[in-house]
């Protein structure tokens, strides 16, 4: 069987699995729709959180980005894992004790204010739409490359699948499909990594192979060889940093804090039965995520070495099939500037000749098995894994949008008199509408999808995180502080990013940035501003009412956590 046939079989089987799971775990009540009835065991919730969190960006793009960034790639590796420590220690157990349905629920109740609730809803919806458009785009790319269908048809098939289980199953359906999707995606990520690590270093475990001697008899370690190759071709050595220390610090912090403030991740901690389960399920989630995140930098180094040895100074006529396949859909471009028929791949410091090759970073993970000449079924498996990563995240985000509309806006703010049945129907309609809008953005991506990801993290870092942490750890924090803090944090961060990304992109370089902090890292400063404003405003306005101080006392202690929700409220 060839690659396309294997891909059809593996993708088809995985889709059938998700649909089967969704039918088996339909939601019947709002409690099941929003928080899966609040009785998901912690390890299962950890699996679901891992799939929820790891998106097309983690699966498809990250290793490729790192292979170009070298050591600086750590901003993603630490940034997208370290946030779980903050989640586990500062947020998850207290949110579980609070025990409602959504993140705006917590903000609205703790700050006794519907204004605060609505500000939170707007942030949640904006962050989620930004993300989900990127996932749909990822689905389209996988379909078009591996299944020879049009990108638009691919997006529509993806929409159909997500629509089916998110609308039908709500949080309960999503949770169990995410467990299945985690298994598919981690298997798909690890199998090629084991193969390649074993082929290149005789050590099958990629985390160790990454630091081992090469099997080619040269006596060099992988990283020494990679540093040498990079320098020879005029690139910076792989294990050196290129960004300023301050910028790496700020970007890492923004991604960590942003992770801990993302609504689709936070909401998962409402689904476990007890406070102690919320703590341990954050640990399970990070363990499952770490499996992929410690493999990713190894894949980056292996792939980079393979690419540099394969394509640098390769005669174009002898280009392998994967090279021409990706060239056909425009993700590899070769321009034979000196007309010698040889592909010259050179870095910015090269002096002998011009660079003639451009490889899109997003293809590294998907092309890696083909570059390493692995069997066809492994290539098909990677396609199924990429789809699992994109669909699981899309579903979690759509649920946040749907619950924000049906629960926070309709039930809690504008029409409190609706019945549970009507609320559930609204939630399903909202999920359906959100799928269609997300699909539209997937087919007609705004040119800035990739850039807006930084935006979403910055916003989450500068808005939700300080308000939630201060709400738990500082009783004196009141609604005035929270509202002013969220608004200044968001406005500052948004203004900085919009200025450098959209208004004056020509100024987007280190010498124009404030203190050398890139737009990706500015959320950290936005968060600090939010904290200062919240504290100053809270101290100069009346303290919160007695019952709110009681409320804070109450969420700090686990006993009597009670049910996750009022079942028919």
């Amino acid at each position, binding site marked *: 069987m060839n690659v396309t046939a294997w891909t059809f079989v593996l993708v088809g089987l995985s889709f059938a699995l998700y649909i089967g799971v969704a039918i088996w775990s339909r939601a019947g009540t709002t409690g099941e729709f929003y928080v899966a009835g609040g009785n998901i065991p912690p390890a299962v919730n950890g699996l679901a959180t891992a799939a929820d969190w790891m998106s097309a960006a983690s699966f498809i793009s990250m290793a490729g980005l790192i292979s170009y960034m070298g050591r600086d790639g*750590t901003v993603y590796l630490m940034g997208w894992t370290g946030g779980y420590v903050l989640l586990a220690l500062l947020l998850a157990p207290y949110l579980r004790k609070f025990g409602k349905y959504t993140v705006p629920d917590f903000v609205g109740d703790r700050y006794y204010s519907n204004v605060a609730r609505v500000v939170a809803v707007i942030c949640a919806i904006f962050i989620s739409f930004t993300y989900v458009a990127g996932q749909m785009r990822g689905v389209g790319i996988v379909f078009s490359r591996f299944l020879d269908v049009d990108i638009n048809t691919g997006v529509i098939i993806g929409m159909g699948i997500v629509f089916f289980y998110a609308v039908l199953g709500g949080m309960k359906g999503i949770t169990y499909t995410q467990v299945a999707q985690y298994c598919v995606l981690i298997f798909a990520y690890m199998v090629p990594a084991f193969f390649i690590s074993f082929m290149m270093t005789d050590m099958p475990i990629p985390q160790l192979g990454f630091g*081992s*001697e090469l099997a080619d008899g040269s006596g060099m370690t992988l990283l020494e060889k990679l540093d040498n190759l990079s320098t020879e071709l005029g690139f910076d050595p792989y294990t050196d*940093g290129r960004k300023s220390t301050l910028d790496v610090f700020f970007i890492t912090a923004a991604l960590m804090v942003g992770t801990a403030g993302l609504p689709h991740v936070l909401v998962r901690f409402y689904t476990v039965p007890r406070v102690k389960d919320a703590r341990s399920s954050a640990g399970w989630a990070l363990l499952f995520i770490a499996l992929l995140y410690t493999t990713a930098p190894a894949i980056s180094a292996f792939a980079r070495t393979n690419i540099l040895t394969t394509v640098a100074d390769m005669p174009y006529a002898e280009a392998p099939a994967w090279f021409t396949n990706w060239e056909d859909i425009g993700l590899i471009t070769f321009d034979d500037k000196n007309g010698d028929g040889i592909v010259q791949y050179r870095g910015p410091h090269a002096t002998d000749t011009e660079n003639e090759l451009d490889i899109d970073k997003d293809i590294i993970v998907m092309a890696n098995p083909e570059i390493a000449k692995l069997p066809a079924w492994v290539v098909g498996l990677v396609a199924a894994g990429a789809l699992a990563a994109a669909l699981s995240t899309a579903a979690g985000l759509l649920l946040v949008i749907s619950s924000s509309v049906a629960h926070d806006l309709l039930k809690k703010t504008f029409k409190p008199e609706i019945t549970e049945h009507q609320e559930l129907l609204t939630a399903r309609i909202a999920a359906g509408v959100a799928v269609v809008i997300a699909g539209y953005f997937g087919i007609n991506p705004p040119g800035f999808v990739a850039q807006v990801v930084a935006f979403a993290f910055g916003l989450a870092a500068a808005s939700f995180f300080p308000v939630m942490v201060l709400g738990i750890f500082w009783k004196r924090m009141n609604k005035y502080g929270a509202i002013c803090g969220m608004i200044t944090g968001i406005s500052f961060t948004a203004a900085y990013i919009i200025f450098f990304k959209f208004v004056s992109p020509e100024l987007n370089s280190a010498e124009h940035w404030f203190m050398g902090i890139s737009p990706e890292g500015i959320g950290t400063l936005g968060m600090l501003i939010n904290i200062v404003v919240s504290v100053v405003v809270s101290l100069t306005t009346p303290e919160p009412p007695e019952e709110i101080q009681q409320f804070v006392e109450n969420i700090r202690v*686990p006993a009597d956590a009670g049910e996750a929700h009022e079942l028919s409220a």
Partner: protein
Amino acid sequence: MDQQSRRLYWRKNLQYLAILLTFWFVVSFGCGILFVDYLDQFRFGGFGLGFWFAQQGAIYFFVLQIIIYVFLMNRLDRKFGVDEKGDAQ
């Protein structure tokens, strides 16, 4: 639970957080970013030590920290009699 033991419970919780978050900061921002060049002069297997912390080590320590946190808090809950009864279903 009376006012006095509530306060004691919370203070102990904050102590654990202070220690664990300091450790969190040291392994990630410390070893992986601020002192990465200094640590790179030491070898760890085929890695420079700083590079290893930045791309592998910090993540292992994150997992370890949550495990320690869960253990400490479960013990604290039992000591103050605020651990929740019943099984995860």
